[in-house]
């Protein structure tokens, strides 16, 4: 169903601009046009549709679903809601406090907060369109597993000891409080859903469109100008250090999944192993310094550092695991 973008790029690059399909530059330009047009069209349509569907799901309702759940169910639910709730990372602090003050254990709250950036609509969409559904499903499963296990781990080490004192008090008060009534599910009219979806689409597209150009531009340059076999030879032969290196490289690229995924497409086509790619992608979308510093308001340094190291280690393990298994696939 994506061939239309290939034809469009054929026409624009080879017919209109008359580049040769066999030249490096022709190849790179074709790659650029095909990917940018495909990503733009998909982003606009899919963000709109997804927003339309989930317009009435908000963190207040999620909180109600999570209150009083037993741990195992709680981590899984926290992770699922983290994946599907529309939620801006700048709301991390109020959501953390809202969940905590309702007596929800820190681990379940963190399952929600860790999964949320990992599985966001833009990253999933780009993975789906550029790397195919198999990689995308793998990514979602691994991402939710990291969220669930990360939450369970934080409860196992009693992470609530290292909250800031006012957050600790809110948690204690919440655990003793009566359960509030369910917030009424908002009955949204189609017009209201459309308005929400339109706002979301404009906001997200306005934020990411330039990263698409940058990312695909880099991908196209790699595609056209890195010698065939170079990546495979130096990074693709199961060298163990490529995974931690990819994770470390992902940290400063925070939240620019839009720019990074097209580069990954190019790297994978040139022979970068799947585990290394997964680890890189996760580190890029989820390990962001500015967002971690924000959490300082509710967490002591010790907990903050623990969460960060936990994430980096789990992404590295994921990378090694999949690189190891890929030879059996």
């Amino acid at each position: 169903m994506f061939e239309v973008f290939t034809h469009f790029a054929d026409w624009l690059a080879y017919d209109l601009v008359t580049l040769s399909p066999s030249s490096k530059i022709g190849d790179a330009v074709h790659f650029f046009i095909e990917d940018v047009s495909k990503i733009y069209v998909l982003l606009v349509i899919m963000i709109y549709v997804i927003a339309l569907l989930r317009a009435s799901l908000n963190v207040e309702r999620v909180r109600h679903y999570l209150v009083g759940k037993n741990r195992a169910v709680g981590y899984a639910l926290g992770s699922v809601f983290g994946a599907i709730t529309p939620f801006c990372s700048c709301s991390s602090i109020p959501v953390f406090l809202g969940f905590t003050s309702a007596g929800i254990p820190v681990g379940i709250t963190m399952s929600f907060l860790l999964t949320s950036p990992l599985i966001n609509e833009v990253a999933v969409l780009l993975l789906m369109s550029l790397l195919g559904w198999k990689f995308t499903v793998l990514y979602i499963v691994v991402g939710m597993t990291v969220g669930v296990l990360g939450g369970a781990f934080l409860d196992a080490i009693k992470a609530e000891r290292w909250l800031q004192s006012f957050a600790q008090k809110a948690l204690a008060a919440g655990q003793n409080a009566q359960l509030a009534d369910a917030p009424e599910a908002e009955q949204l009219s189609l017009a209201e859903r459309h308005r929400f979806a339109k706002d979301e689409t404009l906001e997200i597209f306005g934020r990411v469109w330039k990263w698409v150009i940058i990312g695909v531009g880099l991908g196209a340059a790699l595609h056209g100008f890195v010698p065939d076999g170079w990546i495979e030879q130096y990074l693709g032969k199961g060298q163990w250090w490529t995974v931690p290196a990819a994770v470390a490289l992902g940290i400063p690229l925070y939240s620019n999944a839009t720019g990074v995924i097209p580069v990954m497409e190019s790297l994978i086509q040139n022979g970068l192993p799947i585990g290394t790619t997964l680890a890189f992608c996760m580190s890029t979308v989820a390990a962001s310094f500015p967002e971690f510093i924000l959490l300082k308001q509710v967490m002591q340094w010790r907990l903050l550092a623990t969460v960060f190291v936990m994430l980096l280690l789990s992404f590295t393990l994921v990378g090694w695991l999949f690189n190891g298994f890929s030879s059996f696939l």
Partner: protein
Amino acid sequence: MKQETKQIKVLGSGCTKCQKTAELIERIAAEQGVEVNITKETDAQVFLQYGVMSTPAVIIDEVLKHSGSIPHTDQVKGWLA
């Protein structure tokens, strides 16, 4: 017809959406000739106090009016009328 100055708080972690929300309210208040006193709150304890879980949130005269997005122009006009 001198009205009392409305006390408006915009709650948020200082992201662009919160900035835009404050600017929007300021602009519309100026257009409508309503006196407002806008403060931006970034303190986590304030979020907890008002029970706000998504930002930007708008508190007018101690009442939570809106949370989770930049409000629409007509919403803001309604609050200030």
